[in-house]
């Protein structure tokens, strides 16, 4: 993955949330964004997924310029997992995935059945495929959200603190699923506050504070950081 951000600024009601962000990353599969709550990491992820428009600057992902990209086409190539599961509550786990595949992306019923079955098997969700989101655990629902994002075979996946709404036990099962993504060679960018998970999964880290990137680098260099803020954050 190539990620290049130049002078990115994002404001909400004239309040600067992302303040002149610059980063240049190449040949990396998994990027982890860390930082305190409210530092702008989720906002940055939403800009990368074109869920919001930024005010100024430039973002290039794999040489695709996001400010001019055809959003519809771009979104076909990405997946996004929100902080809390984003399954439609009136549809079963299986139908949540099938709906996107069949009605929105016009995949044939036969093909979607195979895709859904394979993914649910792979993520150990076959037993709950007919259940509504309200009838399964938060961890299962979040894993189902990941499966739904994967069902379209995205080239790049965004995960916005996918375990922040879960208790430690459920967090573990979701993190295991994300590990599986890495094993499959999937490219993804995730926001997290789980330092152990960042170290285990990410190839590259980006540390943010007050809307700015304080430090970024290869994960093996995290311990040698010069930033007091980052050192303090890691201690937390």
């Amino acid at each position, binding site marked *: 993955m190539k990620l290049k951000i130049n002078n990115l600024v994002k404001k909400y009601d004239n309040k600067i949330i992302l303040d002149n962000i610059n980063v240049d990353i190449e040949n990396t599969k998994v990027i982890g964004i860390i930082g305190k709550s409210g530092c702008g990491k989720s906002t940055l992820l939403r800009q990368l*997924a074109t869920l919001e428009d930024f005010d100024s600057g430039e973002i290039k992902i794999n040489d695709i310029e996001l400010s001019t990209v055809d959003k519809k086409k771009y979104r076909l190539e990405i997946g996004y997992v*929100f902080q809390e599961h*984003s399954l439609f509550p009136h549809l079963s786990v299986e139908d949540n995935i099938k709906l*996107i595949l069949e009605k929105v*992306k016009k995949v044939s019923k036969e093909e979607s059945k195979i895709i859904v079955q394979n993914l649910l098997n792979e993520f150990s969700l076959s037993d709950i495929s007919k259940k509504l989101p309200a009838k399964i655990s938060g961890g299962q629902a979040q894993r189902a959200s990941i499966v739904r994002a994967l069902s379209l075979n995205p080239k790049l996946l965004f995960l916005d603190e996918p375990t922040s709404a879960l208790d430690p036990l459920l967090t573990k099962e979701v993190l295991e699923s994300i590990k599986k993504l890495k094993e499959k060679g999937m490219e993804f960018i995730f926001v997290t506050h789980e330092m152990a998970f960042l170290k285990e999964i990410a190839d590259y880290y980006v540390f943010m504070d007050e809307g700015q990137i304080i430090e970024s680098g290869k994960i093996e260099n995290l311990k040698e950081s010069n930033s007091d803020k980052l050192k303090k954050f890691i201690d937390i």
Partner: protein
Amino acid sequence: MFKIQKDKLGKIAAFLLVISFLVYIFFFSIDNLNYKIILQEKEKLILALLSTLYISIVTLLISLISGFIFNLFQNINNVFFRTLSKILREIIMGTPLLVMIFLIVYVFGIRIQIYNKTMLGIIALSLYMTPYMANSYEAAMSIISERQYLVMELYDFNFFQKYRYIILPQIIKPFLPSMINNLSIIIKGSALLKIISVGEIAYIITVISNKSYASIEGYLVMWIMYLIITIPLSLLASHFAKRFSL
């Protein structure tokens, strides 16, 4: 156990009190009440009841659609339509139904040369109910989370797909009680159509009672006929509200 019995007794006592009150009003409040004069026109009364139901159901169907469109305009990105719908909402909600009926029949109707009073009455009622129905949609749609809209945007759902597969299936349950309450309002409001001589309950009973100088009996029968329709609807709304409470 004791509390359940106490609750039951309380309910029975309340029902008995109301029934006694109604019996008093209907049979003893005024001397020489003669319901025969009204009830002997049974066929006309049944037709009037059916007419009221017809007007109310057609109004409901039209206002379901117009309320939906109105709600869309209220939430649209286009400032012109959003502002227009807000202004219209304030004007319609501030207009008494009686005035609305007069405006539609004697201003709008004459201008476009429609003289079918039932149709104009239905238009007036539908127009009056549109912002109320739009409010019902708005309240029901508040159960759709921001995240669901983001997912729909991410997966590029078109307008039809959003409503057909995600929004409508979820809002039907919370919308039902409110819709039934609106139907009750329409049925009661339809009584005002008597001022333009539409043959619904209020008009037919007024005609019958005027012929026989039995206006008190007429209003009492009218009251009962409306209650026969509206009380079951109200109970149905409460049932749905309880069953589908979120």
